[in-house]
């Protein structure tokens, strides 16, 4: 295991203090969340692409688009199933491992989760069933409408989950009940529509589109590399490039805007993710550094910096001041009492960089693809096709890094400024129980990952199905046969 990963693991262990059950519960939440978020952005990104593909077929009666729709629908549904199954684990965990959190903020936090279930997830699940199994039973128009409902449902679902998470990042619209001593909602509009929610939601939607887009692009390029189904996959690759090119550009800017919004509400997160120990005006942006990740060793042994860039990223001005870790720590102590309010700086610094650098790499790949499409050279560009195939990994790794940054750099808080992570854990669960549950999930999810990868690979490599049953144009539909 690389040294750096061991070090960050130790960072996690140091934080909560003494409780091993707490550490195991944190590991379980982190691992199951990242795992869940492997599948979610893919469905969020594939749904609109499928809707576009099916719409083109609907309007042009070009059967190639129908074949592509069905081909990618299989990949979509394999992932949706695992995403749904692992989503239930996420909900149950709040009660099982984090009952202190559920008791204290359930009055506020439960509402977006419940409304997600009844308003969005039910919609997605039902209409995916209709879309997949109902193609012979529905009119062409109704069948097309189903995929749009699925798209709407996946994004709506993401909105409610991001609203819940943003409330943990920046709790608003609540009061502490004097009798129970617990958080209580007072303003539902603030909870559901605070600025951070909107910012983070768009960021996650773009991440989903990049994930779906780069997967379609990579799979299409695999076929192009082998000269198979060229006329189909040239179209799929072009469509994917049309999506990822603008989205990658906007995402870089949007991510930095989210950074500005985050600086307002959690100055520690930005200071830690830049390993900026002391306030600086203007603050440089560190591209790479060795050392400088702990209070006892605040100065890097080696670093490459861009002067003033951090000031710009954090505040949109090249000259303004950015607060350092030590200054924010002093403020936090003044507000919340003695304690260590510094997250794992090394983890924050590198997760930020992995996310940003992979985002930049994605943009370069997308620009390269855009140029090839414009010059009509996509089919001959073997190196691009190989790069795009490897590029499938980019969005997934960037997504992981993004969540690691968001969640670990909020520590020691589970709800920023309101409840500490150590106070959120279930007091009833023993180390053995949480350890057993963590072991069960690691084993089970490991098997699922292997089989899912095998299935995805297999179904990404088959030839798109021939259309033997679909009417073209305005021809009458054959009656369903049963």
């Amino acid at each position, binding site marked *: 295991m690389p040294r750096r990963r061991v070090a960050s693991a130790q960072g996690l262990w140091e934080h909560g203090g003494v409780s091993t059950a707490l550490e195991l519960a944190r590991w379980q939440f982190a691992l199951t969340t990242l795992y869940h978020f492997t599948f979610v952005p893919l469905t969020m990104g594939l749904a609109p692409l499928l809707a576009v593909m099916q719409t083109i077929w609907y309007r042009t009666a070009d059967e190639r688009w129908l074949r592509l729709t069905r081909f990618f629908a299989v990949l979509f549904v394999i992932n949706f199933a695992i995403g749904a199954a692992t989503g239930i684990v996420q909900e149950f965990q709040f009660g099982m491992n984090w009952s202190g959190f559920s008791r204290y903020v359930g009055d506020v936090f439960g509402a977006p989760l419940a409304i997600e279930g009844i308003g969005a997830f039910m919609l997605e699940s039902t209409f995916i069933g209709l879309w*997949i199994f109902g193609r012979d039973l529905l009119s062409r128009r109704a069948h097309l409408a189903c995929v749009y409902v699925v798209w709407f449902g996946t994004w709506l679902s993401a909105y409610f989950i991001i609203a819940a998470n943003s409330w943990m990042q920046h709790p608003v619209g609540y009061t502490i009940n004097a009798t129970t001593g617990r958080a209580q909602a007072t303003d539902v509009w603030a909870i559901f529509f605070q600025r951070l929610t909107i910012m983070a939601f768009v960021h996650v939607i773009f991440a989903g589109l990049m994930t779906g887009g780069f997967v379609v692009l990579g799979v299409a390029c695999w076929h192009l590399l082998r000269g198979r189904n060229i006329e189909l996959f040239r179209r799929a690759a072009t469509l994917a490039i049309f999506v990822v090119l603008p989205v990658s550009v906007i995402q870089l800017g949007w991510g930095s805007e989210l950074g500005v919004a985050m600086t307002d509400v959690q100055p520690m997160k930005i200071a830690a993710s830049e390993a900026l120990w002391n306030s600086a005006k203007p603050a440089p942006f560190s591209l790479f550094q060795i050392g400088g990740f702990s209070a006892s060793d605040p100065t890097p042994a080696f670093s490459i910096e861009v002067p003033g860039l951090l000031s710009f990223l954090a505040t949109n001005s090249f000259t303004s001041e950015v607060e350092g870790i030590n200054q924010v720590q002093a403020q936090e102590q003044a507000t919340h009492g003695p304690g260590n309010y510094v997250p794992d700086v090394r983890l924050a610094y590198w997760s930020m960089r992995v996310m940003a650098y992979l985002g930049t790499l994605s943009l370069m790949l997308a620009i390269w693809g855009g140029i090839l499409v414009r010059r009509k050279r996509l089919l001959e560009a073997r190196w691009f096709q190989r790069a795009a195939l490897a590029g499938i990994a980019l969005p997934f790794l960037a997504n992981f890094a993004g969540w690691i940054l968001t969640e670990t750099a909020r520590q020691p808080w589970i709800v920023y400024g309101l409840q500490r992570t150590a106070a959120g854990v279930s007091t009833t669960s023993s180390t053995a129980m949480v350890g057993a549950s963590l072991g069960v999930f690691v084993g089970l999810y490991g098997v699922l990952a292997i089989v899912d990868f095998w299935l995805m690979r297999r179904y990404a490599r088959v030839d798109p199905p021939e259309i033997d049953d679909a009417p073209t144009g305005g021809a009458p539909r054959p009656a369903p046969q049963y």
Partner: protein
Amino acid sequence: MSLQATWFVLICGLWSAYFVTEGFDFGVGMLVPVLARTEEDRATMFAAIGPVWDGNEVWLLIAGGATFAAFPQWYATMFSGFYIALLAILVLLIVRVVSFEWRTKSAHAAWRGLWTWVNVIASYGAPLVWGIGLASLLYGTPIAANQEFTGSFWSLFSVYSVLAGLAVVALFALHGAVYLGLRGRDDAVRARAQALAFRLAVPATLLGAAFLVATLVVGVTRNHQGVGGGLVVLVLGVVAVLTALVCTWQRRPALAFGATAATIVLAVIMLFVELYPRVMVSSSAFANSLTVHNAASGHYTLTVMTVATLLLLPIVFAYQFWTYRVFRVRVSGETPVTPGDILTPRGGRPPDPPRGGAPPDA
């Protein structure tokens, strides 16, 4: 009706919806080894629930989410206290979800057998644990004054809770058999399902009735309830389960399905009637029990949730109703069972990956 009582009723309704809908797909899963003799039979049976089991399971997610939002203390105590039981349910539900997807992904007999059995075992296991767990809410588990659970995994086991678990399994099996009799094409599976429903009806009726009576007794003795309200539900429940029995014998599948559904709903209502106003009875000190008052969210959250639910639930009912109408055509083994089968021409084998194609990035 107070907001707390409204939400208690709504959560009772959500559990009913979950048990009625997922109940028949659990039941079909349970009956696979009994009713299916060939791979084609198994495909027919899984096809009968293919388009709907996913949506059915969402009711559980909603019931959980609604409990979290409306009664956070109930959610926190129950989920952290019944830890091992819920972990078991999570594992069973996850492997069941993937077994639907993966069963048909290879033609190997061993592979198909493995995922078929995974599905069967999970279809028995999850309802059994739900029955035991929910019955324990009424029977009582050790709960301290600070609302924290102080028992262990074994606190969930009593004669009553195990009876409840077995009754749930038996009712779901009957519900599933009746569903197959209602939906299967006129073929061997349908004939066998109808014959099996005939034989299952007696034990399911006995266990169902025993559960209803035991729930009344437990409610009166352990939760200080009067006899009146429970007796009404008991009578209705017994009528429903006897109707199911008679309709099964008379081979009237549509009525029988309605009657098994009604029995399941009345069994859930029975439990909730005997619980109210408590949501978790404490066996260590009755005063420590969680109630709809001391476990609930504030007035504001309950109001917001009520408005949201009143707006959303009719929409859900509308599209669910439409879905079942769309899929009311009788299914056969030829209907796509899993999404992978979309790639398969009707009646054909799943596609093989191309031969001689090099691995993507070796």
